């Protein structure tokens, strides 16, 4: 079994600070982490490897610093890490990113058969959820997004049954392999890695691929050239204004609650 996991190193958005004047991220004091969904994707891959044998390859596109994230994946049990890093990739949007990852995966598929491609459901910095589906589309592989569980996986028969969360419930889907899954956190709880794996990872140096070696990417399709979208402007959202507050002491509990319920309904967020 060979699973390829695509990950991203992201700023921990629970601690993000924005420079209000420039509308840019203040990197200082913001930890860089593996996108949390991606870490669960790696965990799933490692579990399948333990069950079926084989190997796990983790790929990421990013600056040189992102190789830290690949080392963390190695701690989790990944066998090989590839950092695709080149200044020519900078300012890539999701279309350019999915091109680079798809070509990288094709190159890996040329080395030998691949059974599963795993992505986090989205990255917490951009929240686009576009790269996984984009790569599946480029490779012409079956896509199951928002996967929450693997019911069965058979690398011999090349078929699997996957649970997917949608608004109407959990869809149980059968797919041929290889398939591409984007995963939620429930897909696999992260376990503490044995010390030997951590030691091995600390000695591991991920491979670095450039824009030209070992895969020659089409320069028109990468970085800012290959990105149809650009950021027009960025700004900090205005601080939220406090809504009205009504006092039970003034209006009585019944009419206060009636008013509040009407407000909730008007907001249309949930069915009352």
């Amino acid at each position: 079994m060979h699973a390829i996991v695509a990950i991203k190193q992201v700023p921990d958005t629970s601690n993000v600070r924005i420079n209000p004047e420039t509308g840019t991220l203040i990197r200082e004091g913001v930890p860089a982490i593996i996108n949390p969904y991606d870490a669960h994707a790696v965990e799933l891959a490692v579990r399948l490897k333990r069950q079926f044998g084989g190997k796990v390859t983790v790929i990421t596109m990013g600056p040189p610093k992102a190789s830290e994230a690949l080392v963390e994946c190695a701690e989790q049990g990944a066998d090989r890490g590839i950092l695709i890093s080149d200044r020519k990739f900078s300012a890539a949007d999701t279309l350019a990113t999915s091109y680079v990852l798809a070509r990288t995966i094709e190159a890996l598929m040329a080395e030998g058969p691949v059974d599963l491609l795993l992505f986090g459901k989205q990255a917490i910095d951009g929240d686009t959820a576009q790269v996984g589906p984009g790569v599946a589309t480029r490779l012409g592989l079956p896509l199951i997004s928002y996967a929450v569980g693997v019911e069965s996986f058979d690398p011999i028969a090349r078929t699997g049954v996957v649970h997917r969360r949608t608004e109407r419930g959990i869809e149980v889907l059968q797919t041929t392999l290889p398939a591409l899954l984007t995963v939620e956190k429930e897909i696999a709880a992260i376990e503490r890695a044995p010390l030997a794996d951590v030691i091995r990872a600390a000695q591991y140096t991920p491979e670095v691929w450039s824009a030209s070696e070992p895969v020659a990417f089409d320069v028109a399709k990468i970085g800012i050239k290959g990105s149809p979208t650009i950021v027009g402007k960025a700004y900090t959202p205005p601080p939220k204004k406090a809504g009205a507050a009504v006092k039970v002491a003034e209006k009585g509990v019944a009419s206060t609650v009636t008013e509040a319920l009407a407000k909730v309904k008007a907001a249309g967020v949930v069915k009352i």
Partner: protein
Amino acid sequence: MSERTHTPLSPEVQATLPNVNVDDLLASIKYYVDEDYAHLWIKDQAVCLKCADKPCLAFCPVAVYKVDRQGHTMVGYQACVECGSCRVGCPYHNIAWTLPRGGNGVAYKFG
């Protein structure tokens, strides 16, 4: 060496201490909370029940310790910054103090 003698703080000095909601300070701290393992606990609630002073309620710099209605000492280990004050400061050495599992707990961004 003798035990230390203390001059009590005058009420005037006491009155100059502002009220601070420590929860507001906690928002600046990065934690990786280990939901499956509490690294601090009370060894024997009976000892706390007999402790009249309960200094831990004050000296813990992140207010980990609270007392519930039954007088039991509750431990909010999630906010712990692992300073060790309670380990040393509890007059009865009644706090079991261990380190969080590797990678968990406080992670200072600036330090």
